[in-house]
């Protein structure tokens, strides 16, 4: 059984947010849902300031608070370490969201089709779309995944359920890397199997000191950071983060 993990090299991240774009395109997430989010911080005082960036996917914790509190088992931990959300079973109570210390859960407050960036059925667009399905509607997202055979891939599903980063389960099961990893121009994001000592993630973690976010909570995240430091009270966000629907 593989043991998937992500390693994020903060020395390489340049805050371009290509990972956020890739994630949205790949997983068809609605407006204001950021399964991958990149914090932008500033530290120090003029003229001695330092700007740095912190990508924040779902941490896919081994001791996941969200899995523990889900009343119906829609949120569960797979054997390979992925924390999955079965959107066929989710009742929309949002307990996982309030339990998560990282803020990675997104609820479909309205019908995702009404919350897309582009109205595919718009009258002006119709000559060009011509009844085709939108390019971002990836048929892979509708399949069942894992030994459990549950529908856990993709976003923009239906109103009133929780969605979050899936580590691109539909790609990982076919041997591809998650969209954010595949799309990072600076190779700041790495993905692989911790069980395999030769894998990229194992090699990097052996070479460099690493930390995980909010480790003190005992959530045992599967996302490791190298080449930087965790955000602290002096790390001031460059922008106010409000992406409302």
């Amino acid at each position, binding site marked *: 059984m593989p043991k998937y993990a992500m390693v994020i090299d903060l020395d390489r991240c340049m805050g371009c947010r290509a990972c956020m774009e890739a994630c949205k395109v790949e997983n068809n997430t609605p407006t204001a849902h950021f399964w991958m989010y990149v914090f932008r911080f500033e530290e120090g005082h003029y003229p001695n300031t330092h700007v740095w960036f912190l990508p924040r996917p779902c941490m896919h914790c081994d001791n996941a608070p969200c899995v523990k*509190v889900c009343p119906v088992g829609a949120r569960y931990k797979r054997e390979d370490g992925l924390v999955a959300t079965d959107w066929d079973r989710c009742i*929309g*109570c949002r307990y996982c969201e309030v339990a998560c210390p990282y*803020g990675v859960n997104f609820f479909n407050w309205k019908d995702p089709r009404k919350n897309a960036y582009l109205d595919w059925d718009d009258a002006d667009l119709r000559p060009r779309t011509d009844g085709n399905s939108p390019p971002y509607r990836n048929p892979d997202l509708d399949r069942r995944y894992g030994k459990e055979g549950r529908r856990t891939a993709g976003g923009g599903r239906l109103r009133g359920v929780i969605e979050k980063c899936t580590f691109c389960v539909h790609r990982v099961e076919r041997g591809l890397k998650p969209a954010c990893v595949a799309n990072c121009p600076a190779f700041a994001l790495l993905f692989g199997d911790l069980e395999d000592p030769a894998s990229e993630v194992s090699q990097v973690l052996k070479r460099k000191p690493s930390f995980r976010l909010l480790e003190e909570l005992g959530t045992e995240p599967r996302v490791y950071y190298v080449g930087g430091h965790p955000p602290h*009270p002096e790390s001031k966000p460059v922008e106010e983060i409000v992406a409302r629907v």
Partner: protein
Amino acid sequence: MATRTETLPYGVGRFTAGWWLLLAVLAVLVGWGLYAYSRQLAEGLVVTGLRDIGSMAGAAWGLYIAFDIYFVGVSFAGITMAALIRLLRLEELRPVSRMAELLTIVALILAAFSVLPDLGQPVRGIVNLLRYARPQSPFFGTFTLVISGYLFASLVYFYLDGRRDAALLARIPSPLQGFYRLWAAGYRDTPAERERHHRTAFWLAIAIVPLLVTAHSTLGFVFGIQSGRPGWFSTLQAPAFVVMAGVSGIGLLLVIAAVFRHVLGERERLHEGIFRWLGGLLALLVLVYLYFTVAELLTTTYTGHEVEVRLTLALLNGPYAWLFWVSMGALVLALASLVLPYVPSLVPVRVPSFQPAFARAAGLAAAGAGLVLMIYRHSPRLVPVAGAGGPEPEWVGWVLAGLAVVFVLSWFPLFARSVVAAGVAGGLLVNVAAVGKRLLIVVPSQTHGTLLPYGPGSYTPTWVEYSVVAGLFALGTLLYTLFVKVFPIMEVAEER
């Protein structure tokens, strides 16, 4: 039985114009709540003020969950009273026992109904909870122990307690005779039957007391064991839930008892001793809760953990300050009101009763101080903090709070004279505080308790949420109002 042969006791089956009017108003409110909920079903939860925690800078749980735990809290009263009356042989409290039990049942029904609008997929919620329920989730306890077990136990208790009266009323010819026969189910009030009933109720009461503590604690654990939410993560959460449940439940029971005392004109049966006893118990519980609050504030501010401090400041002097201080003020005022009737008997001097003019002056001073504070906080000299909430609702909050203090203080002379008035005031005030505290438990930890640097969020309920909650309150009152007309709200058996 001599005078009550032809008419049913306590206004049962007699419908007055006022009653019909009340019924109509309540029905309209329930209908309005249903309409608001239908909007939510059509559009999704986007019509509420709830939004995602973190990058959406919102709160995922809000008014619905706050009122859910409020209603469950209120349900404390009934079964506690019933159990106390049974176990401690408090015969003088017997007249309020059925009101209290009915309060429990109604409150639990409302609690179940207020979880439903919070769910994104309500139908799935009902189906999947039966199919896939996980005991490891703290919610499991809420649905099994609280809403099912507790409600079932209360209904059984209520039924058994009412059988004797049903048997008596079934002898009186009335349109409701069949219903009473059904309820009595062959009960004939022989000494052996009475003894058996008494024994059953006694053991049921003993079983219900631990159930009560576990049920309210379970609800506290929903919040208390989440290490990722500063402000929730606290051992005190479960005990505080039990105490606050007692405070709000006993408070509401005082109000209901006073209403029936007035409406039914039963001044002898609902005597002052009952109010004195309940008021004393309420004062004690309020004291314990205030102590918990102080302990919690000291702990969070002394440690200096960054997020804890930020959260506490948001409560004491931030966007939630007016709600926090209104709740605390209401608790303190309630305590003062409840203790006031005791003062003459405790201290061998006349109570220095407040002059209304003095009380109004004090209230105005409080309101003025609040205003000055608000002006200072929003003065251009200070750098405005992003997300610190809009100034308008806070202004309104402080002014209203000041006026409310004026209002309460000017009634103090009456409280010193009348234990019933003091009980009603205390009951209303603690319920204002209970709603406030429930909101303060649920919301700030989501908007200001993020451990990653998302920045402060905000949550303002919309008309849909307010309407649904108002509809729930109306539904509860409606159930109560209807029940009063089909079954006596106090025991008739002893009158024979």
